[in-house]
């Protein structure tokens, strides 16, 4: 008996939905084995994670707080991945967006009319994120520099720049040496609607829908698809690949920059430690698990945020490291990548008997 992979006649619609779901289940089992090694009951752990993330409205708002940046960065990264542009710099783009928004909130609020402070802060965050992503995009298009390395390295530049600012030039003089800027004026606060959950949620959901329409119903989206799936053919058909890459990556960075601006204006109300906590990397998992679909990214982001919040919960309740949630996230990616094989291929079993019929 032999197992062979056979190419499907068409892309399996069923597999597109099934693969992420099954991958999630497989990762639960794999992590469960790990939990048993830690001498913990996986069922109790999972249920307390679930309760911690979704068990009550208060808990759920905390999940939403973490879901918002994951939605935005997930959509942004997903757009870049559609072009096979491996933007793994969402973390840095988010931080840089936060830095730019802080700059506006701290230093422009005296010159701007109050109602303009917040929009300007967010806009500057978006622009900063876009420009930060633009660096690897320009280097790739004009000098053929590998974008993976550049976007990754720029994360450290952005994170250390932010640190330099809140430890140094922008440190709150009345903060008693505590690293962090002074509190933003109220005019730069993004309103919250429940607990710490803020209106950024609605903006993220709206943008997810808009992005889907843009990708599927516009000329530009059509060109992104062509360039992503077959850049050579797209070029023959008259698409300016370089322009498509640059515009798409600017948009990709803009999403992360906006996420950073939301974090500082809605959550911390200052620039401080804790802005770079890995949303930009988790975004990669969000994007893949959502199969680069912006609407699916919204739901996956909530799930991933739930894992983060639930992970914190099990740390407090069961004395497990909070990293368990992150382990679970990582565990999802493996079956996910392995499983994507099944959208294009199916397993076929060849037995001895099928061969002998012929003989």
């Amino acid at each position: 008996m032999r197992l062979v992979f056979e190419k499907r006649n068409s892309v399996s619609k069923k597999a597109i939905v099934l693969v992420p779901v099954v991958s999630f289940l497989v990762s639960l089992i794999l992590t469960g084995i790990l939990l048993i090694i830690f001498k913990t009951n996986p069922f109790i752990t999972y249920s307390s994670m679930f309760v911690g993330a979704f068990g009550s409205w208060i808990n759920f708002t905390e999940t939403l707080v973490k879901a918002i940046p994951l939605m935005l960065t997930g959509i942004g990264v997903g757009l870049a991945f559609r072009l096979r542009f491996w933007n793994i710099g969402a973390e840095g783009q988010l931080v840089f967006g936060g830095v730019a928004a802080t700059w506006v909130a701290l230093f422009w609020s005296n010159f701007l009319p109050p109602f303009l402070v917040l929009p300007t802060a967010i806009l500057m965050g978006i622009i900063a994120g876009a420009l930060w992503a633009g660096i690897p995009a320009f280097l790739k298009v004009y000098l053929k520099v590998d974008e993976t390395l550049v976007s990754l390295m720029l994360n450290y530049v952005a994170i250390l720049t932010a640190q330099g600012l809140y430890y140094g030039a922008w440190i709150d003089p009345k903060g008693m040496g505590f690293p962090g800027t002074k509190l933003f004026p109220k005019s730069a606060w993004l309103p919250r609607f429940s607990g710490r959950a803020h209106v950024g949620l609605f903006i993220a959901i709206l943008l997810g829908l808009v992005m889907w329409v843009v990708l599927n119903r516009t000329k530009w989206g059509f060109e992104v698809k062509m360039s992503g799936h077959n850049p050579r053919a797209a070029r023959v058909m008259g698409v300016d690949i370089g322009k498509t890459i640059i515009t798409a990556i600017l948009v990709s960075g803009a999403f992360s920059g906006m996420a950073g601006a939301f974090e500082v204006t809605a959550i911390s109300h200052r620039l401080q430690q804790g802005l770079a906590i890995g949303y930009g990397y988790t975004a990669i998992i969000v994007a893949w698990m959502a199969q680069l679909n912006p609407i699916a990214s919204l739901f996956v982001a909530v799930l991933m945020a739930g894992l983060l919040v639930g992970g914190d919960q099990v740390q407090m309740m069961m004395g497990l490291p909070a990293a368990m949630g992150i382990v679970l996230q990582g565990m999802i990616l493996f079956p996910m990548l392995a499983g994507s094989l099944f959208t294009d291929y199916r397993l076929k079993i060849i037995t001895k008997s099928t061969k002998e019929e012929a003989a």
Partner: protein
Amino acid sequence: MKNDQNEKYPIVEMIGITKQFPGVLANDTVDLELFSGEVLALLGENGAGKSTLMNILAGLYRADKGKILIKGEEAEINSPKDAMKYGIGMVHQNFKLVPTMSVAENVVLGLDSENFVLDLQKVSSRIKEISNHYNLKVDPGSIIWQMSVGEQQRVEILKLIYRGAEVLILDEPTAVLTPQESGELNRIVKQMTGEGKSAIFITHKMDEVMEFSDWVRVLQKGKLVSVVRTQDTSPKELSRMMVGRDVLFRVEKKKANPGEVVLELENVKAMNDKGLEALKGISFSLRRGEILGIAGVAGNGQRELTEVITGLHKVTEGRVIIGGKDMTNKSPLEVIKSGVSHIPSDRVAMGIVGDMSVANNLAMKEYRKAPLTQHGILNPGRILEMAKKMISSFMISTPAPYTSVKFLSGGNIQKTILAREIGACSTLLVAAYPARGLDVGATESVRKEMIAERDGGKGVLLVSEDLEELMSVSDRIAVMNEGRIMGIVDSAEADIESLGLMMAGVPMEKGK
């Protein structure tokens, strides 16, 4: 040719070979017999299952059913290595050589029999021995990428002889050769069969079957339809067996009625991707209502020529004028907007986006304009409507308009490209090898479309390596060699012999 049947025994027998691919029964209980010292031609249209059958024999695929006997004993062939153990080796259409390595290194690559520390000296002297014996003119020290395609093919053959091949499988070996090089290949194969080796070659060129082979097996849609001795048949009979009907070799066409000049090249020069001069001063003009054929062995600047016209490749010197406007080094989009269509040489890599639907692929030229797009917003309904029309008028066989185009057969992919490009063409059609690898039926319809475009008042530039095709379809033929045009002849007055000489680099004056 020895006729003594007693001396010959079947060296390879394939019995009841069946191979199923998704949606396609590639081989349906096919039998094959190959005698030692003979050449078997495997003839069939595209998608008839010739390559599948040979890939099974060479160990790249496994048959779902059936068995293979080598010298009368059942053989289990699971890999090319297994095949080699039985003395079977294959020269693929795309050579499997490492371009940056020498001949000797390529020959020993992957061999278990060599010691861990290579003795390239010993290998080289053995290569020289084989090369001299068969007069292959291969130097073991040469680097592959510096060699011509013909030379590379001889390296492939040498590689197989070195490994002790008794049976050589050649997959469309002459597709990339000049007529003169084909003759040389024929001589090498004859010498080998004279020594008791045997060969199978896959082809759809009739004249080669007649010239090269002792036996012919004809496949049609995965089934073996006939087995004949070459001396007992004719090209006409063979082509009937191949398609099940008589085929027009000459395409019906009216006399050309050339109008104004639509494309003019003035001393155009361009580099190739390696930075070497690929076009060394090309000048010609093409009129509306005319088909200009470009003949030549692949790799003599044809690709660069089509790409400088379509804006995909930089011109270093000279001018490209399309429809009276200077289009030198304009972007592909500007060229497209001037009404130029392009059927690229590599249809899967450059002509389609495989993961997108047939409908979207059909829209890839028109999507920029109304009615498909308004204010940057696509209208999927109109795209589908247009696609349905194209699918029916070009008879593209697809399960649905929204099927990914990669699931279509080569012929239907080409029809998809053709439908799109002809739909968008208003001045000039640049077609590179539009019928390459297509079956007789599809080839015929592609050629008819070319002529219809001509009769519709457009200029057609047809690049092809099939002289037969160029002579029947085009009105004039320009022959390229090493980035130069060796001469332009009226296709009515052209003959294969003189075209072949020009392809080999002899300018027209001397050739005549």
